[in-house]
């Protein structure tokens, strides 16, 4: 395990020094890698560890983005504070969704439909609120300063996104080894058996969805202040909901490094193919490649790429010792 921590430390050191050697475009790709790794990790808490499939997680990104942006524009509140208000709103919405789903025993596809419904309803509602920019969304004024969460160049975003990703890895690691994480996994594996042992499944389901939703919404604030434009269709839409679950699925569900590995593979692939095919007038082809990759992974590596990564790294890092 010591070797493993050394390995992690060296990866971290490389990531910390990397901006010295990258141009703006390359930095942008890394920002997206960290961003999607973080989102995948947040989603992983609810779906990977607790076993409830959410296909509407963009909902919480939208909530985070809109809350902090609205508060910044209307009241001049710094997004650094607004993001926590957004997290609170996300938790409230998640509790409503969770109450309906968990109290009334909606499981499997019915829970999935519930999550989609919540995201779609919110998308439509936001699309009709003039104060939130209606259908056309909100352009953020570019006033770069630390308190405005806006910066020139990609280097600050790079470090913030990296911080987000590291935070999520540590948070999920702490959850995984705690009583909370163990109960979440028990619920995922067999809710009745967990209840029979005395696990209050409803309570732990609600905690899981609250953690997942609040973490996801923080990324929404980041996204708004990175792109400077928020729009209901792209922030609450199914496209983003699906985009953010592909990485943990391909990397490995219910594992700490699955979403990270998934993002390091998929995000550059997506960015590069998007740019490459757009030049040739083949916009959208990258999505087909994406889809094929997802199908192949699900068919041939149902537990994710992480299993193979572990197998390759094991002789060097001695992962099996202790742990």
């Amino acid at each position, binding site marked *: 395990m010591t070797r493993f921590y050394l390995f992690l430390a060296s990866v971290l050191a490389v990531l910390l020094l990397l901006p010295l050697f990258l141009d703006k475009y390359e930095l942008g790709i890394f920002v997206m890698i960290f961003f999607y790794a973080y989102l995948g990790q947040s989603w992983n808490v609810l779906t990977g560890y607790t076993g409830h499939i959410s296909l509407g997680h963009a909902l919480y990104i939208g909530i985070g983005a809109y809350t902090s942006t609205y508060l910044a524009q209307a009241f001049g509140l710094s997004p650094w504070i607004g993001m926590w208000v957004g997290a609170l709103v996300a938790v409230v919405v998640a509790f409503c969704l969770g109450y309906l789903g968990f109290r009334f025993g909606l499981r499997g596809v019915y829970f999935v439909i519930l999550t989609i419904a919540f995201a779609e309803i919110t998308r439509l509602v936001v699309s009709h609120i003039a104060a939130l920019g209606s259908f056309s969304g909100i352009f953020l004024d570019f006033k770069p300063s630390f308190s405005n969460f806006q910066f020139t160049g990609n280097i600050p975003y790079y470090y913030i996104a990296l911080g987000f990703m590291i935070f999520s890895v540590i948070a999920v690691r702490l959850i995984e080894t705690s009583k909370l994480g*163990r109960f979440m*996994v*028990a619920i995922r*594996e*067999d809710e009745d058996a967990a*209840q*029979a*042992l*005395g*696990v209050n499944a409803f309570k732990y389901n609600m905690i899981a969805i609250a953690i997942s939703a609040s973490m996801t919404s923080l990324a929404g604030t980041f996204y708004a202040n990175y792109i400077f434009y928020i729009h209901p269709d792209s922030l609450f839409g199914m496209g983003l909901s699906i985009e953010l679950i592909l990485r943990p699925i391909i990397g490995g569900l219910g594992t700490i490094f699955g979403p990270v590995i998934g993002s390091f593979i998929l995000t550059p692939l997506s960015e590069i193919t998007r740019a490459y095919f757009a030049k040739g007038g083949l916009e959208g082809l990258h999505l087909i490649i994406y889809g094929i990759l997802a199908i192949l992974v699900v068919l041939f590596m149902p537990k994710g790429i992480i299993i193979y990564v572990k197998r390759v790294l094991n002789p060097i890092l001695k992962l099996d010792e202790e742990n």
Partner: protein
Amino acid sequence: MSILSVNQLSKSFGGLMAVKELSFKLEKGDILGLIGPNGAGKTTVFNCLTGFIPPDQGEILFHEKSVKDMQPYKISQLGLVRTFQIVKPFLTISVLDNVMVGALIKEKSITKARQESMEIIEFLGLGRMANVEAQGLPLPLRKKLELARALATKPKILLLDEVMAGLNPTEVDEIIDLIRQVNARGISILLIEHVMRGVMALSQRVLVINYGKKIAEGIPEEVVKDKGVIEAYLGKEFLSAQG
């Protein structure tokens, strides 16, 4: 004072009376066998006692306190803990982690929960399997795991639903011995079992139900000679053929 007393418990599914006005008591420290032909309603009784199915009528008193209409997890935390006839291991985590879920209900510290769990695992003879994923276990060991998890919650009453089904005679004897030791630690046991060898060896008293109704109750040796019981298991013709 009975640790568990059930009065006039009834449960029907549509037109089918699965349990009908069933009353019985479990004394502290006892082992009570609950037997009956297939479909007699034994598992439904367990489901009602542990809150998985709300009973239509009747009273369930655990330590003189009603546990009717309580959530399953709450009943389990009070100390009325069941196992499942169709075992439900947490498949993708290790045997130790499975048992730790039970231990963590009453023990806050992960380290202590791990120690307690290891002791229980050793006690049940699963020591070599502690770090194996539960999906790698064959049925007899899964049954033991089911028992281990329940024990880890520090129950006052164990409701064992056919823990011996599907085991060979040697394994049955081993489980009988283990249940005796569990009982000797002061845990009262309600046992659903088809394996008569197990029921006869363990139970101080036996309760026989058929079509959800009690048809006999008493010490095992007498109950198996009861005409009503033989009829329920083997039919009227068998009785008349015997004369």
